[in-house]
């Protein structure tokens, strides 16, 4: 971003950026093709930034989100107030986070009045976090934030997590000051020793200590330009980060409930497995739900849950279903970027969407493995959403390859 690049001159030193000069009319006096070209180039640039090779990613993430709730969050430079804007975006973030990292856990902290408070504990349940965020809207923002207190509290929560998980803290900091009880350098050292990555998103201006924390712990520090940029910055944290190389690998025991028992498997099914029972996830709340035969039984202790993924309260086994793990597989086998080529007269249609190539589209994209030609929109769709090349899946040689 322009703010963090120290070698670039400030805007008032280099004169105005004449952005209107980028738009030119073509021969007929029409602007359409030029605009389409600019849009296409912007799209490609965004997509190209995401293309990474096969590096080790932290799949099981334990992330604490620290929200600044100090007096400066009532400023209205983000509509309606900074605090409400951030909460709204965090709801989207929570939804996307669990979508992309189903076996991860999230916790929320706030900091105000020189202290930090825990809103939700580290959990994998999406609804609880979103409900908590909605209740936070009534919170009054006052006092001064304390960076050290919130980092220490998050660190206490993350210290006991297993070594194979990726420990992260995301701080949304809107203030230019912090009020700390002790030496923050000691906290930074402790964070580094515990392998915790701290990423900070600044809402006001760049603060030196935030830059230092992010740099020393291996995280990122960005300051937003406007609310769209804030959304992009928050959503960029959804992607699993590359592992620094010091995470231990271990075998985690997990249960896969929800099987239809068959004679061949050898697993015995008693009628107790499908009898109505109270589910353990709601047993503490006032309205506990009586489940019909539709819940999931923990394979180790037999307790009933209504939704997955969940950590069994009775025996501590993590219960997931196979699609949850499969959601993360596409990070491990990313598609190589497609090669950009000039249009060839032989291929008249895009392979994946059967769209006719028109003259205005100068560039088409080819997959290295299967050599099928696709249009720009399909390229972005494949890269961002589908995560598998339809051309490779339609070729008997490449489709049968075990993804290794």
């Amino acid at each position, binding site marked *: 971003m322009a703010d963090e690049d120290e070698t670039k001159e400030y805007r008032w030193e280099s004169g105005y950026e004449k952005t209107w000069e980028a738009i030119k009319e073509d021969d007929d006096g029409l602007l359409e093709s030029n605009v389409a070209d600019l849009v296409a180039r912007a799209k490609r640039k965004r997509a190209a930034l995401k293309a990474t090779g096969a590096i080790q990613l932290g799949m099981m993430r334990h992330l604490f989100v620290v929200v600044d709730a100090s007096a400066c969050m009532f400023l209205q430079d983000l509509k309606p107030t900074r605090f409400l804007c951030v909460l709204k975006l965090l709801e989207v973030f929570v939804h996307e986070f669990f979508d992309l990292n189903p076996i991860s856990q999230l916790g929320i902290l706030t900091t105000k009045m020189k202290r930090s408070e825990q809103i939700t504990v580290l959990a994998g349940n999406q609804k609880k976090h979103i409900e908590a965020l909605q209740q936070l809207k009534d919170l009054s923002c006052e006092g001064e934030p304390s960076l050290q207190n919130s980092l220490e509290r998050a660190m206490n929560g993350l210290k006991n997590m297993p070594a194979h998980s990726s420990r992260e803290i995301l701080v949304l900091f809107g203030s230019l000051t912090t009020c700390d009880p002790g030496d923050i350098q000691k906290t930074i050292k402790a964070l580094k020793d515990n392998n915790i990555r701290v990423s900070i998103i600044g809402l006001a201006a760049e603060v030196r200590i935030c830059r230092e924390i992010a740099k020393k712990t291996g995280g990122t520090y960005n300051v937003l330009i406007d609310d769209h940029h804030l959304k992009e910055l928050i959503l960029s944290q959804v992607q699993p980060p590359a592992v620094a190389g010091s*995470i*231990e*690998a271990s075998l985690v025991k997990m249960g896969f409930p929800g*099987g239809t028992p068959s004679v061949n498997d050898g697993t015995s099914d008693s009628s107790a497995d499908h009898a109505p029972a109270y589910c353990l996830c709601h047993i503490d709340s006032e309205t506990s739900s009586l489940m019909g035969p539709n819940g999931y039984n923990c394979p180790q202790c037999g307790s009933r849950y209504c939704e997955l993924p969940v950590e069994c309260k009775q025996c501590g086994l993590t219960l997931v279903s196979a699609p949850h793990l*499969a959601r993360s597989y596409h990070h491990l086998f990313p598609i190589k970027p497609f090669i950009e080529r000039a249009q060839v007269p032989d291929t008249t249609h895009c392979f994946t*969407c059967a769209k006719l190539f028109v003259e205005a589209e100068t560039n088409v994209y080819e997959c290295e493995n299967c050599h099928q030609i696709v249009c720009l929109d399909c390229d972005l769709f494949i890269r961002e959403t589908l995560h598998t090349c339809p051309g490779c*899946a339609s070729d008997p040689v490449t489709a049968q390859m075990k993804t290794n």
Partner: protein
Amino acid sequence: MEDKEERIETSLVAIVIDATPAKKFASQPLDGSSMMNRIFDSLIAFGNAHLMQASHNKLAIIACNSKSTKFLYPSMDGNSRSYQNRPGQYDMFAKVDSDVRHGLGELILNDLTDNDSTKSDSLLGGAMARALCYIHRVQRELSLSHQLKPRVLVVSGSCDSALQYMTFMNVFFTAQKENVVIDCCMMDTDSGLLQQGCDITGGQYLHIPSVAGLLEYLLWVFLPSPSCRSKIVLPPPTKVDYRAACFCHHKLVDIGWVCSVCLSIFCKFSIMCTTCNTEFKLNRPAIVPAKSKKRARIE
């Protein structure tokens, strides 16, 4: 924010047909015409029935076998083939009929070179991925006054292919994200993967007992759109087996060991992961440090 004007609902059905020539079907004659002919006649009739529901409705048909996948309708051939329609027949019906038969002929001709095509798996994953890309394109091109309601109908008779697991799962998650409902009509065998897909996207899975009645099943169960399915009594949802298969024996496991790096599943605890070759550290704490801690406290 509610729309002040009602948006026109455009229903798009993408039919994905598995045209793998299973020997069982190709050789079973029924009333003079072979089973394959009857299956495709039923599918064309179903497609036309869908187009007949509303003038805005759209259709796409993709066929696949073990060699390749092909868009049957809309046809990707540049030349406009002349088609004869009976007087009074809606033009589009004749076009669908002609395109599907011609495309299918080409697809089967391409497959004739290999004799043991029934041994390798059908490329259903690739065909479904193309269907999703087509749906995405139609969504983009549709004007704002129309609201697209897409769904994919998979008609297949092949067993699951374990090697295409990744493709299938990516397709299902994409469909869930894009609000595309995946329905499945299985003719011969059951498919666990497609059952999972129908469950994930909220579609209908049906295993039909007799292939001769394919058209009846398609029209009764799969023609109504998902929004009105709640008013109809449809076959009950099957209980889907969501257990994972271990990577070493391909057996379904209740409790498994998952590698934290590559997420591969094993049925037994081992020292090294066979997929990503990482060594595991034992989780169990050693007894000796605890004793020494106790000694330190006493002293």
